[in-house]
């Protein structure tokens, strides 16, 4: 058979594409549950981090989580729980950052007066710059932060950390003003939402 003929070429291309795609489908099918599981665990660990109940042992995340909650939130969903006798609203938020969508978990008290905690699930910000929103020092600034009538300000500060939790203000990231600004907008939108939806 002529190997450069059109019939051979079509048949060959078809067979080889079929063969490789078949194997990919197999590999995908074999790992789909694991991938799904990883996603769920990452949401669970974010929720636990936001309310400060993250277990030291990462293997126990699901265990601790199921003790605390009945369901894993979907994007945009709000769930409630109690931390130390106080009820807490938790929302799986998503909003636009500089390069792409930033998703995460925000926890506030039921009167929406203080942020309990914040954690980032995914983002596409510049590594080392905007990407630093995922660093502990940045997220920790939100814990216990008082919410003023204007919400929260992510200010251009020393870029290290703002320890004062009464001034409704956290330090932004040096060299990533736009990502810092996006975070401010996202958090304030969430606060607005939780104020109207949460206080029913």
């Amino acid at each position: 058979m002529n190997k450069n003929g059109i019939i051979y070429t079509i048949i060959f291309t078809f067979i080889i594409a079929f063969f490789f795609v078949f194997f990919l489908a197999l590999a995908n099918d074999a790992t789909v549950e694991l991938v799904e599981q990883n996603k769920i665990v990452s949401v669970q660990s974010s929720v636990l981090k936001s309310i400060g109940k993250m277990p030291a042992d990462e293997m126990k995340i699901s265990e601790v989580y199921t003790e605390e909650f009945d369901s894993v939130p979907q994007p945009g969903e709000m769930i409630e729980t109690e931390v130390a006798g106080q009820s807490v609203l938790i929302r799986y938020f998503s909003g636009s950052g500089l390069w792409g969508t930033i998703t995460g978990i925000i926890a506030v008290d039921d009167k929406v007066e203080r942020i309990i905690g914040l954690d980032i699930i995914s983002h596409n910000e510049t590594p080392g710059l905007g990407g630093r929103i995922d660093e502990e020092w940045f997220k920790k600034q939100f814990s216990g932060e008082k919410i003023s009538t204007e919400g929260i300000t992510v200010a251009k500060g020393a870029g290290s950390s703002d320890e004062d939790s009464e001034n409704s203000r956290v330090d932004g990231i040096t060299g990533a003003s736009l990502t810092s600004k996006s975070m401010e907008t996202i958090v304030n939108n969430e606060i607005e939402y939780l104020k109207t939806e949460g206080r029913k």
Partner: protein
Amino acid sequence: MNEATPSAIFKDNVWTNNPVFVQILGICSTLAVTNNLTNTFTMTVALIFVAALTNVTVSIIKSLIPRKVRMIVQTLIIAFYVIIVDILLRAYLPEVSKSLGPYVGLIITNCIIMGRAEAFAQANGPLLSFWDGITSGLGYMWVLMIIAFIRELLGFGTLFGFPVMPESFTRWTIMVMAPSAFFLLGTFLWVVKSIMLKKGAAR
């Protein structure tokens, strides 16, 4: 390439005909992932894996591939292995997968793999092709690791995520951004070429 013995291939791919600093291939990923060592390491290991297996596969079926669709078939094979890597990372190393983001997928367009498949695997046996893929990957790896070492050290003050610089160290913000990779790669090329020229002159 004069003769295709394993040691000649090794020397060629790692030094005299290095894919990064001689052929200037795979520059996109050189700029993109080298701001920390962990990501660079995962990326280069993935590249070695894909390059080696693509070469073997192309080499095995080379006599069956019609000339007209040669490139398309090679791309298909590369894409197949890259997606396999992506799936494995997502299932078993979700953290790494998260931080590498879209760059794993970009291995598909890495010219080193395509170049080796076309230039070497099309003309040589599976075993030699396998070795060629691995050594090309190594040639890519050591250059990227050096650049990543400098960038992470100065940009974050850490190595593989562990702080090594004193607290008072001021991070060089430029080092974590793509432009610094241009500077470093340029400097690196200069140094290596000077060494090569010196060696050539001494001969």
